[in-house]
């Protein structure tokens, strides 16, 4: 049994925005899954849905099996028990995810005490250990969030996420707001912790390059749906879905003459989750769209060993992806978004 098994998860906000539309994901203990996709494609929504943290009025269907138990049908009391103890979250924007009026030590200790993992004294000790684990002196437990720098706060969030020894950690864009150097520090820290504690990790980012570097597997989302999934390096280097390909191409490889004076982008605007285009949601921006794409909404299909992609060109006898690959011009010259 895998640690996390998400089946056909859909999330629709009260406003009518279909933020997540039928996502299947699996994660085994000790595995690191990267979740990429442009801003607004539903990554955070998915993460919040896993612990039922979405605002009231949001419709969630599907199954979220955490160690075989469906989070979505649990009693609230059980959900609360699972939260943090079973799965914890490192939220996007650590600046705001810490409560400004409590000392960080207390905030870290709070879930420990709440889930009765330790006595107050024990919690204090554990807090110190956790802080040292993430590279902060235990004495900093007395600090308030505003006394810490962005990177330090992010570390506190990570320490907090580990407080109850969860089986699963969801890290939502843990490095987005950070400087390159601190980003590297944090990524290194996360990798190390996962390796040490045999956790399941879901790491969310829109920086495909970072994810490819950190994770075992990579899922690329577009408009609320996973459009490509597979081993991280393969997806990054050789994506099958045109969107995933465009995304990976947007990260220039320094030293690669092909990207010198050739920035690459993806024309068009991201879709509005409240009014998605018909057919394949990517077709209005897709450089290799076929006419049928406007009607047919492709499901994830096998696209090689351990790989899946949701594109009509994938898995065709004449392997469409390969075909597209041979016409790099289609993507390479970034064009202004003019009709």
């Amino acid at each position, binding site marked *: 049994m895998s640690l996390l098994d998400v089946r056909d998860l859909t999330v629709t906000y009260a406003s009518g925005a279909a933020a997540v539309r039928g996502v299947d994901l699996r994660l085994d203990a000790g595995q690191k899954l990267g979740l990429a996709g442009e801003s607004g494609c539903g990554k955070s929504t998915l993460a919040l849905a896993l612990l039922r943290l979405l605002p*009231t009025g949001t419709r969630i269907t599907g199954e979220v099996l955490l160690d075989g138990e469906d989070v979505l049908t649990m009693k*609230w009391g059980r959900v609360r028990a699972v939260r943090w103890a079973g799965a914890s979250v490192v939220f996007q924007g650590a600046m705001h995810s810490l409560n400004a009026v409590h000392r960080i030590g207390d905030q870290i200790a709070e879930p420990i005490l709440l889930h009765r993992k330790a006595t107050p004294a024990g919690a204090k000790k554990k807090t110190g250990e956790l802080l040292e684990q993430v590279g902060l002196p235990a004495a900093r437990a007395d600090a308030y969030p505003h006394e810490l720098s962005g990177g330090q706060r992010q570390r506190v969030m990570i320490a907090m996420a580990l407080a109850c020894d969860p089986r699963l950690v969801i890290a939502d864009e843990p490095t987005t707001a950070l400087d390159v150097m601190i980003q590297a520090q944090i990524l290194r820290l996360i990798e190390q912790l996962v390796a040490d504690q045999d956790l399941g990790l879901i790491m969310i980012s829109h920086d495909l390059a970072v994810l490819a570097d950190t994770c075992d597997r990579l899922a690329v989302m577009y408009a609320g749906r996973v459009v490509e999934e597979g081993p991280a390096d393969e997806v990054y280097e050789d994506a099958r879905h045109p969107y995933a390909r465009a995304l990976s191409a947007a990260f220039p490889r320094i030293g690669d003459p092909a990207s010198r004076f050739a920035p690459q982008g993806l024309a068009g605007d991201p879709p509005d989750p409240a009014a998605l285009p018909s057919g394949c949601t990517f077709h209005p921006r897709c450089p290799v769209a076929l006419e049928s794409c406007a009607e047919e909404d492709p499901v994830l299909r096998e696209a090689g060993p351990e790989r899946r992609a949701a594109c009509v060109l994938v898995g065709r006898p004449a392997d469409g992806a390969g075909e597209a690959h041979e016409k790099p011009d289609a993507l390479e010259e970034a064009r202004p978004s003019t009709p």
Partner: protein
Amino acid sequence: ATPLAPASQQARAADDGKVLTVAVAQSVDSLSPFLAVRLLSTSIHRLMYEYLTNYDPKDNHAIPGLATKWESSPDKLTWTYTIRSNSKWSDGKQATAEDAAWTFNKMMTDDGAATANGSYVGNFKKVTAPSPTKLVVELKKPQATMVSLDVPIVPKHVWEKVSDFSEFNNDKSFPVVGNGPFTLTGYKADSYVRLKANKGFWRGAPKFDEVVFRYYKDQDAAVSALRKGEVSFVAGSPSLTPAQAASLEGADNIQVNDAPGRRFYALATNPGAKAKNGKKFGDGHPSLLDQRVRNALFRAVDREAIIEKVFQGHAVEGEGYLPPRFSQYYWKPSADQKLAYDPAEAARLLDQAGYRKNGDGKRVGKDGKPISYRVLCHATDPNDKAVGKYLQEWWGELGIGVQLNCLDNVTDPWLAGKYDLAFDGWSVNPDPDFVMSIHTCGALPATPEDTGATDNFICDKKYDELYARQLAEYDPAKRADIVQQMESRLYDLGYMNVMAYPNAVEAYRTDQIKSITTMPAKAGNIYGQDGYWSWWSAVPADSGGSSENASSTVVVVGVVAVVVLLAGLGGFAAMRRRATAEDRE
């Protein structure tokens, strides 16, 4: 009955005795007789201290007070008072002529002590007490008020210790030593003044054991308190409004006393303010110097309407200067002298005086500008404002503008002569000398810098002659005749246009006060009498038994119970919510 039943029947027995509670609208300025000038404070002093003389409640003539009799030397410069020997201070000491002499001497020598009543002794040469029962006052010149010296006599042995009379307010240690019908036992600023009956009062003990003056800023609250029986008496400031009177008239156990008042209510005209040294000041409208204009203005005032609408019958139409209550001095204009309400005649008079209407229908002054009079009114007096509204419309018809200048404190423009017309009114004493004197040239301020005794700067030779004559006249009937001639002169001059004599409208609970003396006895008022008659004479009703003390406690307990109950219910509800909140997120 429910525990919250109204405690209406309550001549409140505080500890043991009967309490008479009077609602008053004024706050005490000072409890020192040397400083107090407000009506409330001086009324209280009447109760606390005996004065040399008192006024007969029936006809206001001077009767013995602390002095049993008095006589003057033929030149009226030396007055000898015999001091009664049966008046004791509340600390047991005998009240003597020495006390009286000390009181007067203090006022003569100490500026601080002269603050309130200094005018009485300004003319005194010497005051001595040759014996405990004999007081001799020597004057510089004759003084008409020698039998109405409204000066509380204070115990020397107590007041000697006061160092600064200008700051001693006599409100720190109780009971305050006095020899009046009541003894001051408690005072809380802007709350109440308590007085206890003086059982040993020489004229006889008061019937009530206690009198409490309770302060209500709001007259409506006072009336409501009367309705509920929280107070026994409401005076009103200066009187109950017609609406209040009307509503109280129908109420059970309440007696409305609608007494002819001792006030007149007039419209004073600025005659061009000037000082005795001839200096003119102020800025009265020049057109008002023309008698025709003044008379025209008054002819455009419908007094009947004012009585009917503003006072709603609780006043008598104004004619002569002195109210009809003082019958011997009362004067009415003859039919052809009377400035009857006649707008057409008023317009004619104005035309005649040369103030004609311009194209816009506005009358223009000699300076070519439309006439608009500034009318000084007391912001605190609803009647001023109401009558002002009528004036605006009546005079507006005539083509004259009216600008109501309502102030909390009119003293300043008044003394500076910076007004055109003003609402004016005085309470008249049994002896009209004072209210007559304030219109003499002699009352004008010496210089514009001084403050004179004058009311509104009237200075008329003929009037002054009459005034001098009445002063010298000792035959009451003849004197009354001269006074009436003065009134007639004043009427014609048109500087003081009396519009009404407002009644004193007051009310008391008959289930708390069985009887009470009015002054004058027939159709007189109760509050603000010259003397202590009302409170001294008030007889408690027998029925009053239930004590508010108990009932209020019951009410409080009830309220507390309700609050606790509500809190409990709220808590319960909150807990229930808490329970359901478990399943919320």
